[in-house]
């Protein structure tokens, strides 16, 4: 029974990972930029939701409707000020710049919110008992929101003009430019969506795990591992990869004695290396998959 409980916990944990990875995967697939500050954007969303909760008593499930748009704006700003100038340069430079941005955001968060762990306690977080398993209510809600966001992003990319433009640019940015698509505008929207998803993920993280300003790198690594497992630029890939990572972490914590929840990054690192070894070496030159 304990193992089923661990499996269930992993699946539900994977919902949050899926939302986080959706945004990471989108900017990587469309802009070709690996955003090392993605985890810090998630934390920024989480701290905003915490402020809304403490200041206005706003529930984080409503707060995510505000942190999402707020981070959408931050993503557009990031694109205008920084990434726009780096997209056509060697990959290394965007990596270095977002690495710097990550430190910048982490220390900004530490200045504002101090280094104490912050979390949002929710009164209705009693588990639902079902057939011997206890289902954490908040995690279940986050899981369902992850599915809904995946569907919404799918519809956005398939049914709207901007979505079609984003997919066109992901497939071939030069051809898209020739067809009259405003590529810079597509980049702006993509970074906005990517950061907006990070902001929503952050708000949903706050009731699940304590926030700490320097956890950004760990979340970025998890998003990277998920994206490699699931495939860059794929919505089902991000969600399924998130579930896979949640399962791996929870099983490692349940099966290896004395480990507890402390191997979050170690197990995703191991999973990442295994998948990369299995798929062959990571190859950025391959054309990105069509974001479904």
């Amino acid at each position, binding site marked *: 029974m304990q193992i089923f409980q661990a499996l269930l916990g992993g699946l539900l944990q994977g919902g949050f990972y899926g939302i986080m990875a959706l945004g990471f995967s989108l900017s990587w697939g469309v802009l070709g930029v*690996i955003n*090392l500050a993605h985890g810090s954007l998630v934390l920024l969303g989480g701290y905003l939701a915490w402020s809304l909760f403490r200041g206005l008593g706003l529930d984080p499930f409503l707060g995510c409707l505000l942190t999402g748009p707020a981070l959408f704006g931050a993503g557009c700003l990031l694109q205008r000020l*920084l990434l726009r*100038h*780096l997209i056509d*340069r*060697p*990959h*290394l*430079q965007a*990596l*270095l*710049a977002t*690495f*710097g*941005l*990550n*430190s*910048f*955001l*982490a*220390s*900004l968060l*530490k*200045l504002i919110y101090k280094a104490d762990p912050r979390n949002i306690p929710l009164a209705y977080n009693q588990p639902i008992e079902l057939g011997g398993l206890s289902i954490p209510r908040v995690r279940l809600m986050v899981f369902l929101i992850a599915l809904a966001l995946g569907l919404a992003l799918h519809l956005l990319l398939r049914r709207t003009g901007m979505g079609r433009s984003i997919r066109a640019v992901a497939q071939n940015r030069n051809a898209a430019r020739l067809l009259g698509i405003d590529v810079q505008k597509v980049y702006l929207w993509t970074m906005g969506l990517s950061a907006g998803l990070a902001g929503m993920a952050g708000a949903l993280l706050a009731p699940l795990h304590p926030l700490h300003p*320097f956890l950004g*790198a*760990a979340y*970025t*690594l998890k998003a*990277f*591992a998920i994206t*490699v497992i699931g495939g860059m630029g794929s919505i089902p890939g991000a969600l399924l990869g998130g579930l896979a990572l949640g399962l791996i972490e929870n099983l490692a914590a349940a099966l290896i004695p*004395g*480990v507890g929840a*402390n*191997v*979050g*990054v*170690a197990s*995703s*690192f*191991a999973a*990442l*290396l295994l998948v*990369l*070894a299995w798929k062959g*070496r*990571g*190859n*950025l030159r391959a054309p990105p998959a069509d974001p479904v």
Partner: protein
Amino acid sequence: MSEALLLGLTQLLMLITLASSWNLISGVAGCVDFGHAVFFGVGAYAMGILTTRTPLGFAPGLGFWPALLAAVLASAAYARLLGRLTLRLQGPYFSIAMLGALVATKELVRLARPWTGGGSGLDLPPVLDRAGDLAFMAGLCGGWLGALALLRRSELGLTLLALREDETGAQMRGIDTAAQKTAALVISASVTGAVGAFWAWQTTTLDPDTAFLDSRTLDMALCCLLGGLGTFWGPPLGAALLFGLRELLWSRFLDLHLLLQGGLLMGLVLLLPDGILGRRPR
């Protein structure tokens, strides 16, 4: 010389040595290593464990020099192991896999409580000899820069430059690029590990967060980018400038330290990607 001056100079030499060792793998070989601070931590912990604790049931209680040698070997061996796993990966995949190695190693060190003291860390025997510290770092830094100058003209150095520019081309000329990159990582990690071991000896206390400090990689990257990534004199120049900036300006705003460094890195990439001494057209 005053204590503070001795300590400051020692720190400057440490920064120069770290930056130059990061430059070998990231600038010369072109494999940007975001987790290089892991070797600093491994060296520091090797020094800590061998001089104080009783790992595996025996009490080494070694002196500085044998422990230093062991720390260098430990860092080199860890680099060999990690390199086998990560250096097959291309570009950004390598960079991020190494960042993962840093965070994962920190977690494992925290878990291995019987050997590493877990989250509370280790205390080393206190030895206060600021002049001796400076002499050691001057020797290490001078020796490393000398070795680096020779290395750059050696076959390995030229091979690394070649594979940075065109890895496929180098492979087609019969170069085992994975082996060459592993050699660069092992050499670079040994020096970083030596600095880490010295740091542990000098600081006399270490825990996972200080030994595997994420921002140490940022320091190294910043020095190299400021001076010129891949150049010989770039990292020392960048280290001296960064150190001067810190002492003159930022020491008054300790809280803003990381904020300013992160901002500086973004600004450099945007405006001066080849650094002060870099002239390689991109």
